């Protein structure tokens, strides 16, 4: 026992000291990290619900195992829904938000908020002004029919053009959006007026 203590006291002591150090750092940064994540989500929500303006803070619901945000404008009118969804990606999970019209029949926007897709190719699933056409295609699509990926300029209303060199990334994003259409949209609570 004595030998054991003689050899290990430093490790035990350092373990304790470092744990205290980590706890301090954690409590000093956690609020800010949460705030960053919340801001990221808020920016994304405002982007996919163009009518939100300076509305009320979105109300969080749980629909079909997804976080769903009910968005109202300043006067309390329903202006849209936002579904927070994630799914498999090329390298790591892709997380995105889908904006829906108040009646849930139209997509108002899609924005990827978390991914590790290949820089220069797959990362074009992310919105970047008007530079990346891919995510912009979703605005205005109907939720009555699953979308299909094509490798040419989209012709039919339900078609989405893939990113050249990143067909898989394009497909994965579309799969997540299609899953939202199929599983979450029919479950949205009915809303009067």
């Amino acid at each position, binding site marked *: 026992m004595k030998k054991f203590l003689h050899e290990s006291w*430093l490790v035990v002591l350092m373990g304790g000291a470092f744990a205290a150090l980590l706890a301090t750092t954690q409590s000093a940064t956690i609020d800010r990290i949460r705030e960053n994540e919340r801001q*990221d989500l808020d920016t994304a929500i405002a982007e996919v619900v163009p009518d939100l303006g300076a509305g009320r803070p979105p109300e969080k619901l749980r629909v079909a195992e997804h976080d769903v945000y009910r968005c109202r404008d300043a006067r309390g009118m329903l202006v849209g829904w936002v579904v927070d969804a994630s799914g498999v990606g090329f390298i790591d999970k892709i997380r995105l938000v889908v904006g829906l019209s108040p009646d849930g029949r139209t997509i108002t926007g899609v924005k990827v908020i978390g991914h590790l897709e290949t820089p220069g190719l797959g990362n074009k699933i992310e919105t970047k002004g008007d530079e990346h056409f891919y995510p912009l295609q979703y605005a205005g699509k109907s939720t009555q029919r699953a979308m299909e990926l094509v490798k040419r300029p989209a012709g039919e209303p339900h078609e989405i053009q893939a990113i050249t060199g990143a067909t898989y990334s394009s497909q994965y994003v579309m799969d997540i959006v299609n899953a939202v259409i199929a599983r979450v949209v029919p479950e949205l609570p009915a809303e009067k007026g």
Partner: protein
Amino acid sequence: MAEEMSHFQQFKSGIVENNPVLVQLLGMCPTLAITNSLENALVMGAAATFVVVMSNLITSLLRNLIQPHVRILIFTLTIATFVTIADMTLKAHLYQVSKQLGAFVPLIIVNCMIICRAEVVALKSGVGRSLADAFGIGIGFTLALSILGVIREILGSGSLTLPGGMKLLELPPGFDPHAWIIMILPPGAFLTLGVVVGVVNYLRQRKPKEVPA
């Protein structure tokens, strides 16, 4: 070490003669994975510098108390703690970059460059020398990553952006970055590293050797 180096020489050695990436070829995982832009390279370099400085400092302070057979345990404990602190700090203050670096910040824990400095220098030297060494190695690492980052970002994206979003350079529109897309993909990392290490070796061999071995 046949002859004791001065603290400044120890510092300089990490940047030039013993550059961890370009000469010792240590820390290849972040070198290959995150040097597709200058911003990533600088942030990764800063995080690794912070960790190697803290690890060298603690190891050097405790060097007379550390039992030889638990030393690796102590190194790992120290490094893991400070990597976690660096990771939390990045998430709090440089959220977008930390999202891009993803798992590579936590992976600094297994960067053998850092444990190597603890073993080779900090365990046997005073605090001053250990810190000089850590800063040298950290800056050398950052410099090497930045060289790769600059080359790959210019060729692969056709522009160079500083952290904070300032465009430093934009290639003329006649240059098509799509043709060079390979530079920001993994093969581009290997190609660039190979060329840079080749140039460094060539320059090192051209130096006249003072004492024939």
